[in-house]
């Protein structure tokens, strides 16, 4: 989930599709979609249908963090910064 939140927060509000998210995070479709479902239900991720790049293709589902999701991403980054490498607490 952290990898997914990291990738979505890096996108800075840009909509991302499912397959590129899979490649960027290294998650399989079997892991990515349940995470997206859970995060959407919890209000961390929002989605919309977008027109395809090529004519004749179906619309694609795109995702980005909501305000709550961005807040969580910031909290996670802060926690990671405070913890430092290998779990050591930095002063």
């Amino acid at each position, binding site marked *: 989930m952290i990898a997914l939140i990291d990738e979505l927060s890096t996108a800075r509000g840009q909509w991302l*599709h*499912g*397959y590129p998210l*899979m490649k960027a995070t290294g998650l*399989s*479709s*079997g*892991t*990515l*979609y*349940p995470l*997206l*479902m859970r995060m959407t239900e919890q209000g961390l991720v929002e*989605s919309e*249908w977008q*027109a*395809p790049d090529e*004519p*004749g*293709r*179906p*619309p*694609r*589902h795109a995702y980005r963090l909501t305000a709550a999701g961005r807040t969580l991403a910031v909290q996670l980054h802060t926690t990671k910064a405070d913890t430092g490498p290998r779990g050591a607490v930095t002063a």
Partner: protein
Amino acid sequence: MREVFARAILKLAGRALGPRHQVWAWAMEAELSVAIFEGRPISFAIGCLSASWRELVNMPEGRLALAVHGLAILLVVPLAGIGLWLGAIGFPYLSIGDVGIDGFLAGQSQQLPTLLVGERAMAPALTLVILSLSAGQFLLAFALVDRKWSRVSQIARFNAAALTTLLLVTAILSVAGGLLLVMTAALAIETLALVMLNWWRELVPDDGWPDAPSQWRGAARLRF
């Protein structure tokens, strides 16, 4: 070929997600074309299928569907098969004799008639009732899986009537009824399971999908 196989797997995944999560099934389908272009359609589709099966267990209607299929496959269909087998071996008017189950399975059934001479005209009718019961069980399994609950109720009543007829006739004819009592117990357990499933389905949210915006449904089916 791989594309066809991947699409079939995704269709299965879509069915498992049910109407409430259908938008996710469409989302997965839309990404399949990218997976095909990248040369990884099968692994993508199999991942989606595993995701949908995991969601099945998390959804109330998914757990109900698993229970329904479990009852149909593990109890109803085996009972139907046993009924078919009993009809084929001439139960209850032919007895296997003293050979025991081992001997019977080895084809050594003594096939002793259990009916008196004047009662043997009943034999075809008894076979018909046994086979009707078996056919009723098969139809019950289909109706269960299709979730046609009024039909399940009708077929269950028919099966109960057939079994009651069998019990009464064999009692009147004084034919050995040990196996029939086992069948009666099995059918009683099946009926109890059906009643419980019916109560459970009334607690499960409706299988419809009321919360999807209509634009999504339209958008997912548009071709640009």
